[in-house]
């Protein structure tokens, strides 16, 4: 019985945590016009995305570059040639991908 209530409590705690993180991730990139692009990430509740990992992948899914968003929630890359995408990875439910063709 004691075991049950502990697991219940854990389940409730897990639920509360996920409820507290019910914000939506937001991520987009733009071309700076100088062969570089800047990507910006954040959350719908205004929480900072500083430190969130960002990966640039080529058309085959190979990592070209990676880094973390700075205090402004931004990161800049050189624009690669050919097909590519940029992935914002803030955990399982919080992954977003922007395709290179959409970065203007």
């Amino acid at each position, binding site marked *: 019985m004691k075991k049950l209530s502990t697991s219940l409590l854990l389940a409730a705690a897990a639920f509360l945590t996920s409820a507290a993180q019910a914000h*939506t991730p*937001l991520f*987009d990139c*733009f071309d*700076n*016009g100088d062969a570089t692009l*800047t990507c*910006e*990430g*954040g*959350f*719908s*509740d*205004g*929480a*900072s995305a*500083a430190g969130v990992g960002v990966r640039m992948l080529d058309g085959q899914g190979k990592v070209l570059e990676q880094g973390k968003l700075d*205090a*402004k*929630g*931004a990161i800049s890359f050189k624009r690669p040639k050919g097909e590519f995408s940029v992935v914002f990875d803030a955990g399982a439910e919080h992954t977003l991908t922007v395709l290179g063709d959409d970065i*203007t």
Partner: protein
Amino acid sequence: MKMKFAPLLLGAVLATASMQAAAHFLLVYTPQTALLRGGADMPFNLIFTHAFNGGPSMEMAKPQKFYFAKQATPDEKSEITDLSSYLEPIQWQAQNGTVSAWRANIPRNVMRSAGDYQIVVEPEPFHEESEDIYIQQFSKVMVNIGGIPGNWDEALGLPGEIVALNKPYANWTGGVFRGVVLGDGKPVPFTQVEVEYLNHDLDLTNNRFAEASHIEAPHPALGAMVIKTDANGQFAFSLAKAGWWGFAALDIGPVKTFKERPLSQDGVLWVQATDLPK
């Protein structure tokens, strides 16, 4: 003779009444405030007018300041970016000829980063000849790019200011907009707030308001509306129609005279309502 005279008089009274009922609004107009991306130059028009009636419009001197406030990081106070170098004078069609107004195209590289932008106009005091007073409306509009929120609820320390309690760019038609009126940074209880719908579309090709109106008010009180703040300086107003709603809190700033005449330092905020998609 008597019969003819009476309708004329009534007409004159109605004309006077509607003139008095219309409130001054410094319009800070941009077509869309909730943007997915900052893809192109961002156009703004600054026109000192009467919003519901689409005029009369008044002469507007070059603003003392025109800028946006935006946070660099989520937890910091906003930084100011001066936009005054982008101001260009235009001649806006008014009832009798034209009046001076302003246009600004903010380049993409200045206004494309995600987040909230509070765009602010601090105008020169305007001499209202009919009342021999000066009016200075500190006017704000907010733009969001990409959905990442920022400083939409931040007070910028204007002499007269309406601070939003709902995002001004994120309102469904019929939703309730809330704000708080600050004079010299402090809430102003039980003060009047004028509310007007931008009832005539802007014809930006010909620099005039369209003739056609969206609403025919059956009574003056439904055109130039007046509400009051509560004991905490807050107000709420339901946005009954998609488009632009102007809120103006009058004579709330600390400076009360200009050139030895009464000065009304007002706070104006523009709010955009969006229809639910069908």
